[in-house]
C-alpha cells in the first residue's frame, strides 16, 4: 500500500465496526426520518392496496379463465424481450464506444443517449403510423408488389413483440449509461493484467469487463424493467394487454377495485422481490476497485471491416430509438393540417417546464434528506424499507394517481372537517386534491427512485474521513453539508435532476388525472390528440417533448463525460 503518486480514491465502505458514530447531526435520527419519507412515498400505493380485502365477486375465476393468461404472457414477453434487447444493445454499444476506435465513435458516444428524450407512447404513435397495414411503409410495399391483405407477411407492430421493441428502443439508454460509466470507471490496470494473462480483446469483455460492470448493468436493466412494467401509454395504444392495462381495466371496466388492487399487489410484490434480489446480489459481490490509478483508456483500433460493423451496431438502437421516429414525427408535423397554435404550444411548454422544475426541486430535496439520513444511521431495516420507496417507479402512474385521489380526498375532507369545527365553520374546499401539489406529489412518488439512486451512489463516493476532517476543523453539520457534501454531490445532483426532469416531462397518466384546471402539459395534449385519432395534432407537442428533452440529455452527456474518475473534473472550477 505505498502508492505515492495518486490519490487512493478507493470506494471503501465504512468498516462494519463503526455503527455508533457519535455526534448530534442536525437531522433527527436517520432511521426515523427515512421511515417518514418511505411512508409518504408509499401511502398512495397502500391506499390502492387497501382494497385488497373487499370482495371480488368471483372476478378472479373469470380472470383466470379469460384474461390472466394473456396478462402474464404479455408481461413476460415484455420483460424478456425488453431486457435482452436493452442488455445486448446497451451493454454492447457501451463496450464498443469505450474500448474501440471506429468511425463516428465520438459522436455516437453521446448520440446514443438521445432516446431518453423520447417518450414510449410517442414511439408507439410514430411506429404504428409508419408500420401499420394502412401506413406508408406497407402501402408502398403493396403498391410496388400488387400484393393484398393476407398475401404477404409483415410484422405487426401492435403486438407484444412490437411493444417490447418500442420499449427497448426508448429505454436502452438506461443500460447504456450505466454500463458505460462502469466500463470507464474500471481500472485500465485490471484490463491490462488480464491481457498479460492471455485474454484476447474479445474474451476480455466476457471475463473482466462484464463481470466488473455487472452490478451497474443489473441496476440499469432493473430500471428498464420497472419502467416497462409500469408503462401504460405505449402498451394501451398497441392494445397489448399487460398487468398494468389489466389493473386499469379491472378497476374501471369491471368496476372492481378489489381485484384491481390484488393484481397490483402481485405486480408490486414481483418488483419488490426483484429489487431485494438486486440488493442481495450486490451485497454478495461488492467490488472494490483495488487499483486507484486511472489513465486515459487506450482505445483499440479496429480493422476496416470490423470498424464498419461497430458503427453499424451502434447505429441500430440509435436509429430505432431516435433517428427514425424523430424523422417520422418531423414529417408528420410538416404535413399536418390540424396544428396547434404557437401560443398554445408555448403555454404547454411553460406548464411542462414548470412542473418539471418544481418536481425536480422537491424530489431532490427529499432524496438528499433520505440518502443523508441513511448515511448517518445505517440501520439495516432502513435499507430494506428504502427499497419500498423505490417501488413507485415500477408502479403504473394510474395506480399512483388513483391512490393519491383516495388519500388526498380523505386528507381534504379531514382538513375541512377540522377547520369547520375550529375556525368558525370555515371550509376552504379542496386544499390538496386537484392542485399542483397533487401532480407534484404523484410525480415524486413515481420518480423518487430516479433521483435516489444517483444520489446514493454519489454519497457512497464521499469518504467518511472527509466529513470527519471537516468536523474536526470546526464545521458544523449544516456547513459540512453546504461546503463538502453539496459540491461533491454536484455531479450526482445534476444527473438526478436531469433524469427526473426528463421523466416528469414524459409522464402521462398521473399528471392527467391529478392536474388542476386548465393545466395541460405537452404529454397530456399529445396523448389526448392521439387517442382521439388526431395524430396530426399530436405530432407537434410530441416533437416539442423530444426537442425540449434534448437539452437535458446533452447536459447529461457532458456530465457523464466529466464524471469519469481521473478526468479531473475539479480543474475547471
Amino acid at each position: 500500500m505505498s502508492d505515492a503518486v495518486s490519490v487512493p480514491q478507493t470506494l471503501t465502505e465504512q468498516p462494519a465496526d463503526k455503527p455508533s458514530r457519535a455526534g448530534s447531526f442536525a437531522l433527527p435520527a436517520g432511521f426515523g426520518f427515512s421511515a417518514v419519507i418511505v411512508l409518504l412515498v408509499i401511502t398512495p400505493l397502500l391506499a390502492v392496496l387497501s382494497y385488497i380485502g373487499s370482495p371480488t365477486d368471483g372476478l378472479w375465476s373469470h380472470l383466470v379463465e379469460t384474461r390472466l393468461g394473456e396478462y402474464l404472457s404479455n408481461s413476460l414477453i415484455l420483460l424478456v424481450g425488453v431486457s435482452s434487447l436493452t442488455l445486448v444493445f446497451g451493454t454492447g454499444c457501451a463496450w464498443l464506444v469505450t474500448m474501440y476506435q471506429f468511425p463516428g465513435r465520438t459522436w455516437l458516444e453521446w448520440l446514443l443517449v438521445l432516446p431518453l428524450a423520447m417518450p414510449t407512447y410517442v414511439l408507439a404513435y410514430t411506429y404504428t403510423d409508419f408500420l401499420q397495414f394502412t401506413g406508408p411503409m406497407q402501402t408502398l410495399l403493396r403498391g410496388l408488389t400488387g400484393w393484398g391483405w393476407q398475401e404477404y407477411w409483415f410484422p405487426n407492430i401492435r403486438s407484444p413483440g412490437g411493444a417490447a421493441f418500442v420499449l427497448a428502443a426508448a429505454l436502452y439508454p438506461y443500460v447504456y449509461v450505466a454500463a458505460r460509466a462502469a466500463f470507464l470507471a474500471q481500472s485500465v490496470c485490471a484490463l491490462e493484467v488480464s491481457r498479460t494473462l492471455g485474454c484476447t480483446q474479445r474474451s476480455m469483455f466476457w471475463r473482466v469487463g462484464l463481470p466488473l460492470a455487472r452490478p451497474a448493468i443489473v441496476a440499469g436493466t432493473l430500471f428498464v424493467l420497472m419502467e416497462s412494467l409500469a408503462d401504460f401509454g405505449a402498451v394501451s395504444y398497441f392494445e397489448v394487454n399487460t398487468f398494468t392495462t389489466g389493473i386499469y381495466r379491472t378497476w374501471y371496466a369491471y368496476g372492481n377495485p378489489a381485484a384491481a388492487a390484488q393484481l397490483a399487489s402481485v405486480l408490486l410484490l414481483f418488483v419488490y422481490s426483484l429489487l431485494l434480489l438486486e440488493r442481495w446480489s450486490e451485497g454478495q459481490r461488492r467490488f472494490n476497485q483495488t487499483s486507484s490509478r486511472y489513465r486515459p483508456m487506450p482505445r483499440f483500433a479496429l480493422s476496416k471491416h470490423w470498424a464498419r460493423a461497430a458503427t453499424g451496431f451502434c447505429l441500430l438502437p440509435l436509429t430505432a430509438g431516435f433517428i427514425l421516429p424523430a424523422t417520422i414525427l418531423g414529417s408528420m408535423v410538416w404535413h399536418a393540417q390540424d396544428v396547434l397554435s404557437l401560443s398554445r404550444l408555448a403555454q404547454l411548454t411553460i406548464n411542462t417546464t414548470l412542473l418539471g422544475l418544481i418536481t425536480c426541486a422537491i424530489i431532490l430535496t427529499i432524496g438528499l434528506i433520505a440518502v443523508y439520513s441513511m448515511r448517518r444511521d445505517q440501520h439495516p431495516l432502513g435499507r430494506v424499507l428504502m427499497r419500498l420507496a423505490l417501488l413507485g417507479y415500477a408502479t403504473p402512474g394510474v395506480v399512483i394517481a388513483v391512490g393519491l385521489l383516495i388519500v388526498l380526498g380523505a386528507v381534504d375532507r379531514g382538513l375541512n372537517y377540522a377547520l369547520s369545527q375550529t375556525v368558525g365553520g370555515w371550509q376552504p374546499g379542496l386544499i390538496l386534491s386537484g392542485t399542483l401539489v397533487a401532480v407534484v406529489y404523484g410525480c415524486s412518488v413515481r420518480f423518487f427512485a430516479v433521483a435516489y439512486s444517483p444520489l446514493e451512489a454519489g454519497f457512497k463516493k464521499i469518504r467518511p474521513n472527509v466529513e470527519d476532517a471537516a468536523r474536526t476543523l470546526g464545521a458544523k453539520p449544516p456547513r459540512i453539508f453546504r461546503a463538502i457534501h453539496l459540491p461533491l454531490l454536484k455531479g450526482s445532483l445534476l444527473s438526478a435532476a436531469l433524469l427526473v426532469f426528463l421523466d416528469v416531462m414524459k409522464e402521462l397518466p398521473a399528471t392527467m388525472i391529478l392536474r388542476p384546471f386548465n393545466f395541460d402539459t405537452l404529454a397530456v395534449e399529445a396523448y389526448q390528440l392521439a387517442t382521439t385519432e388526431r395524430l396530426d395534432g399530436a405530432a407537434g407537442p410530441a416533437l416539442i417533448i423530444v426537442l425540449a428533452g434534448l437539452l437535458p440529455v446533452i447536459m447529461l452527456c457532458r456530465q457523464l463525460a466529466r464524471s469519469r474518475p481521473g478526468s479531473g473534473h475539479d480543474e475547471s472550477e
Partner: protein
Amino acid sequence: MTAALAFVDIAHRFGELQALQQVSFQIAAGDILCLLGPSGCGKTTALRIAAGLERPHHGLVQINGRTVSGNDGFVVPEARGVGLLFQDYALFPHLTVERNVLFGLKGLPAAEQRSRTRYWLQRVGLWDRQKAYPHMLSGGEQQRVALARALAPQPAVLLLDEPFSNLDSQLRYQVREDVLRTIKDMDTGTAALMVTHDPEEALYMGDQIALMDKGRIIQTGTANDLYCQPLNPLVATFFGSVNRFSSDVQAGHVATPMGALPAGHLTDGTEVDVLVRTEGIGLAAQEGNDPAPNAIISTIRRLGQISRIDLQTLPETGFDCSLTVHVLGPTAYQVGDHVKLILDSNLAFVFPVQVSGDSQSD
C-alpha cells in the same frame, strides 16, 4: 500543570466487542504520545474518541483540563479544537490547497485567515501550489497540505492516524521529519497523539509511547523506557528482534550461554524466559583459545549499516541453541569462526514464564 490531552479510564464497546478497557494516559503540552500496537488493538478507536467522532461508554476525556467527554456531557468534534491528520489525507477534493487550509479558519478576521494560510503553506513549502487541487499533488505534498490544514486553526491537540503509511519509504522519512519538526517548533504548545503500528516510527516520533494490545495499554513510557525496561516479553519483542531461551533461577541468578544474569527479585527455581536483544550481544576478538569461544558462526548477512550474524552455541556452554547478533557495519568474521559472545546485561531481560505467555519472537 494540566495535560493538553488526558484519557481517564476510558472503555468502549462495539456491540459484543470490547474495543477499549481502562485506557488512561496524559500528554503534556508540546509533547507527542504515540499509541502503538498491532492492527485491531483499539488504537484508532482511542484516536476517534479523542476527536469526538466516537463517544466512549465509560471514562473521561479532557483537553487542557476541560472535560470534553464524560458523565456531564459531550463536546462535539467541531467544538473541541483538535486537528486530525488521516492516513488517506482526507483533503477536500473539490477545494484548492489554499481553500482546504482556509476551511478551518472560518470565524477569524479575513486578514488573519489569509496570513495564517500563507504562513502555514509557506511552512510546509507549498505556498506556490496554493491554487492547485489535491489530485494534482503527490502523496507527500497532500500530506503536507493536510498537516497545514490541521495545524492552521492552532488546535490544542493534533491527532495523527497512521499518517505516513501511505507514503513510500524514502518519502516517509522525510515527511516524518518535517511533521516532527513542525509540531515541535510550534509555540502554541500543541500536543500530538499519533497512532501507528510501526515501532520504529513510534520510537522516532514519540516523547512518550503507549503500547496497546487487545484494547488495553500495556506499558507507557519514553522510548528508552520501553526499549530498555520492557514490562513483559510482548513489549520487549515489539521493539526489535530478540534472542529468546528458557532457563530457571538458581542462587539469584539465571544462567545463559554467555554467562549468568542477576535474577532480581525472582525466587530460586522460578522458570524464566530470557530475552536478549540482538544488539545486546557482542563478539570478542579471538586470540587463539583466549578467551574461550562459546559459539560458532553459521551464516553472515551483510546488510549495509549492520551485519546479521547467526551463531550456534558450543556444547561446552551447556546450551544448544541458535542466536542472532546484529553488529554495526561490515564485519571481518567468516562463517565457521569460533567466537566468544559477550552479554550486555542492560539489553537482556528476564521474565517469569507466563502460562499462556505471548510467544512472539524473532
